[in-house]
């Protein structure tokens, strides 16, 4: 690890890392960086006379396992199925930006705040998690990675979701009708590949 990274780790501990440094640390995904983070805390805690009995306890494996189990629901086939028509893509993308922005706002304003802060030192799946105190000053930086991990809040269905559900029902009806007409019988129903129960 070069001195620059080491300085960045130190700055991060002191709550003085700027966004660029934080991102560089996160991107490095380096065992040496994590070890330095661990060692710096040990040294600081030792100097401060903090109880060191649990200093060697590494819960990162369990946390990682828990994170791995917490699979974010993959978009259903119909979700991937549905696309706005190209000629309307501009309007649609604007709507998407608005939606993402609102989601971001929710993630950082509600109950998810604690999650967002806690997840800052562990943004990569390989990161080890130590029972180190996280200073609130570190959390000043908005880290977009939390967007991907915070579960979507159940909200009333948006028009696109309705469109997908509608489409699924249409597809089933169409397939039944088609099975009467295309000479291929029940094979036609293979196309109704995603029978998502209406949420």
């Amino acid at each position, binding site marked *: 690890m070069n001195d620059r990274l080491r300085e960045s780790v130190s700055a991060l501990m002191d709550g003085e890392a700027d966004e660029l440094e934080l991102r560089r640390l996160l991107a490095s995904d380096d065992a040496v960086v994590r070890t330095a983070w661990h060692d710096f805390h040990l040294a600081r805690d030792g100097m401060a006379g903090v109880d060191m009995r649990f200093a060697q306890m590494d819960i990162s494996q369990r946390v990682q396992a828990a994170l791995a189990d917490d699979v974010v629901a993959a978009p259903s086939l119909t979700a991937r199925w549905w696309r706005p028509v190209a000629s309307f893509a501009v309007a649609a993308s604007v709507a998407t930006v608005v939606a993402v922005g609102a989601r971001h706002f929710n993630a950082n304003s509600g109950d998810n705040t604690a999650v967002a802060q806690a997840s800052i030192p562990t943004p990569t799946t390989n990161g080890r998690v130590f029972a180190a105190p996280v200073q609130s000053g570190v959390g000043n930086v908005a880290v977009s990675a939390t967007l991907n991990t915070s579960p979507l809040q159940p909200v009333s269905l948006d028009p696109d979701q309705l469109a997908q559900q509608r*489409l699924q029902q249409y597809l089933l009806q169409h397939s039944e009708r088609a099975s009467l007409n*295309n000479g291929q019988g029940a094979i036609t129903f293979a196309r109704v590949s995603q029978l998502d129960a209406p949420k």
Partner: protein
Amino acid sequence: MHLSNLDTSQHTGISIHTLRSSLLSLWLALPCVAVADSPQSEQWLGRLAHSMDELNYRGVMSYAHGAQMESLRLTHGIFDGEEFERLEHLDGAPREIIRHGKQLTCIQLGQRVDSLLHRHLLKAGLEGIDRYYDIEVAGEDRVAGRRAVVLNIKPRDQFRFGYRLALDHDTGLLLRTEALDDAGRVRERLQFVEVEIGMPLKKEWLGDVANHPTANSAVTNSKPEPVLIDRVVEEAQMPWRPEWMPPGFVLSVAPHRASEGVMTYSDGLAVLSIFVEITQAPLPASDGRAMQGATVAYTKLANFNGQPYLVTVVGEVPEMTAQRVASAVSWRNPTP
């Protein structure tokens, strides 16, 4: 979900599987006696439509579309004197579709639908499919360990897909079907990996629905409603209609209520359905399209006298066809 229409089988006494044969088969099957008159390729198509409806068969299929592949098990035959078919998805969440007689059950959706589909045949639809497709026997192949005859079906215009079919040499059963777009790319492929033909159905193959007809009664969401045949809505009575349809497509499944909002058209091979819905629910921000394999759905936002409504065309047709049909739907009456 409303799948309510009329099946003529009760009224006419024609067996269900006869009704279930395609437009194609009705045209091609009649000359079972006079097969010598029709070209070999059309004889094979006639055998296909018959065998799919009349034979007992059970096998595992693969369904490939885009970069995806799915596995399914198809069981078909006669059970309790009625046609039975069951299509089980073998990948992902367990889900299946069972049809026994007129009852269509989608397990996982938890829905049981008494399907009263009425096949509304127009004379025009029975006329030569070779007007719209160029059909030829393209040789032999081997599919699912069986000797197969390959049929190439090329569209004569750009409004429909082409097909490459492999039929079982001994029975005419469809062993493989591929839908091809105008560039000759395979949009989807369905084929048996292994299939057994002609054996009696075993009870354990039928699934819970056939064995326990009331198992799902708690979630039954529609009641069969006897519908007199004269209440079937003619195309001319619908409040809306497509002003344009690709040549050869005729109304093949009619609604029995004008309010039902769906009409299905077919040229004998390709099928498309038009759904028209006036809804209070939030509307999508724009027109939308969806594609999977050969299936395309095109949703168009429209407005009639200030009333927004949705027109959606779903079918195994090129996107351009779906879009054009959706754009051609218009209201007949002053108010929707």
